[in-house]
């Protein structure tokens, strides 16, 4: 069982720094694959940056920014098979884009519009879950259930460093190991739970150390390195499919934006640290890597970002063009067979 030594300080990296730290290549990744991953990151980045603008313009409500976390989301999703399920938190609200979900659906969610509903089975993307860590047992149950049915699918749950303090994380992780569920527990350790630093969240030397308590492998990767996330997730998925059970992945990152549009981090976060982190943000790192290995040039980059922007603009147009929701929807969908008195309310 691969397990990380508790105090192992260094995290797995694939992308070098253009200097002393050399680039690695991930076996089996073609140029097309690399560009596909890059495209996904651009899609997510564009979604996020536009959303912040749309929020300022009052076109969407409160929004949970994920700027700088695109590497974790894209790296993980590209490592999965199409039938594998993804369980996002609010921080990965737009991850469905990488499964063909139209941007207007997610924009509608943030606009508080029922068009924000989607069918998880259609995209193998579960609904956005707001209560911290509570999606972890869902992902475990799904993986376990698929395995019991002899289907090859595994599941991946996204959650944060703060989530590791919740009982739901603990009970889900333990159950995953006991049932040898093909689940991947991907923790985005961005250093903060709103205003609470990870140092006040746990005394564990690394979050990956928690894996040992569940008897599952725990690995640490550079969350700003999309290929490192991709590689680690591939290994976890392989192990899961081979019956090796769950893996805990700690993606070490940093929250380079406010917790959400409503949050003002100036009270608790060091702007200088944020500035440095932003200089080293994941899309730029991958962009430079791809240029070093000769897969990307200005033209392609330009084209991809224009496509992403166009898709996003089309998405907001559709979202804003939606008719006001039928108030009748208040009474729909809570039950397959609603109780007769559902409308009683005086």
């Amino acid at each position, binding site marked *: 069982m691969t397990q990380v030594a508790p105090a192992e300080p260094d995290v797995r990296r694939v992308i070098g720094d253009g200097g002393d730290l050399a680039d690695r290549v991930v076996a089996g990744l073609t140029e097309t694959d690399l560009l596909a991953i890059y495209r996904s990151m651009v899609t997510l980045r564009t979604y996020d940056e536009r959303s912040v603008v749309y929020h300022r313009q009052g076109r969407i409500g409160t929004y949970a920014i994920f700027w700088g976390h695109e590497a974790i989301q894209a790296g993980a999703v590209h490592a999965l098979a199409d039938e594998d399920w993804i369980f996002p938190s609010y921080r990965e609200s737009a991850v469905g884009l990488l499964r063909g979900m139209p941007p207007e659906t997610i924009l509608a969610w943030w606009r508080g519009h029922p068009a924000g509903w989607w069918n998880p089975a259609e995209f193998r993307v579960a609904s956005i879950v707001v209560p911290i860590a509570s999606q972890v047992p869902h992902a475990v149950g799904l993986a376990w*259930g698929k395995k019991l049915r002899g289907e090859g699918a595994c599941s991946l749950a996204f959650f944060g460093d703060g989530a590791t303090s919740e009982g739901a994380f603990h009970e889900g992780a333990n159950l995953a190991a006991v049932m040898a569920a093909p689940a991947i527990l991907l923790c985005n350790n961005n250093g903060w739970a709103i205003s609470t630093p990870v140092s006040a969240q746990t005394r564990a030397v690394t979050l990956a150390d928690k894996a040992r308590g569940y008897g599952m492998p725990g690995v640490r990767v550079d969350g700003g390195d999309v290929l490192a996330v991709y590689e680690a997730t591939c290994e976890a998925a392989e192990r899961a499919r081979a019956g090796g059970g769950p893996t805990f992945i700690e993606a070490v990152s940093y929250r380079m934006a406010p917790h959400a549009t409503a949050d003002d981090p100036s009270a608790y976060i060091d702007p200088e640290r944020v500035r440095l982190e932003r200089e080293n943000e994941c899309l730029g790192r991958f962009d430079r890597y791809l240029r070093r290995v000769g897969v990307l040039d200005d033209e392609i980059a330009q084209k991809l970002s224009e496509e992403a922007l166009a898709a996003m603009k089309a998405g907001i147009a559709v979202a804003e063009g939606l008719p006001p929701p039928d108030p009748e929807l208040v009474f729909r969908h809570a039950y397959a067979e609603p109780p007769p008195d559902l409308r009683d309310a005086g």
Partner: protein
Amino acid sequence: MPARTLVEAVNDALHVEMERDTDVMVLGEDVGRAGGVFRATAGLRDRFGPDRCVDTPLAEAGILGSAVGLAMAGWRPVCEMQYDAFSYPALDQLICHVGRYRWRTGGAMDFPITIRMPYGGGVRAPELHEDSPEAYYVHTPGIKVAIPSTPADAKGLLAAAIRSEDPVVVFEPKLLYRTARDEVPDGEHVVPLGKARMVQEGDDVSLIAYGAMVPVAQRAAGELDASVEVLDIRSLRPLDEDAILASAAKTGRVVIVQEAPRTCGFAAEIAARLAEKAILDLRAPVVRVTGYDVPYPFWSIEDEYMPTPERVAAAARRLLEF
């Protein structure tokens, strides 16, 4: 029809439904090897294997939370909570997810999850083995709740719960697990949710109860020299409001019996509906005979807490003399 105890009827329902639908699986603490601390799941592990009758780790939120994922994978999970009070760690999953996930998918996915648990007092047990938590569950949107008082209903309502596309919580009166013994139909037996059971008809006063309070109401009826109607609502959501209103219209006097603590218990809901929809029929106050707003007491004095036939009869007499 063979005579079965209430817990045997539960066990029978599980056998029949698991036989009938291979998507049904049972999970919980000690449901497998031991067959459940009350033997409600006895034989399931041998018959259907450890994958469909699963001993889980000791983690109620993990059990119910994973049931959400199991349902997404196509299973119909039947979760046992070992005792009433031990279901509380799972309330977060119940309220945030079990009751909301179908809605969250715009109705695209169903969550046919059944939660069953022994509930209630009168069994001379240590602390926290005697709670009646139904109000926490029935107040939660997206959840249905059934509480049988007879072996046949225990089988039929559990079958209906397992077959329901909606999440259903079935509270099994542990006091009656072995004391209630009656004929139970063999094979498939389904009692639809939302239909009350007329226990006995009467004209002067209505005693409305559910679960372990139904026999209490029946005994109270026996003590009264009046024409007493006893109604077992057995399904709290959906609720057979028509049956309640009809009984109130007939007798004009209603006593509601509830074992749970008083405030915001289900008796309050019934009384509130009567106050709104039966005001012209009522010839006397609506009285709730309930447990008290106190921790369930030590068992040497639990009989003081539990509604008794005497308390119910006294309440009925007050109404008859009103």
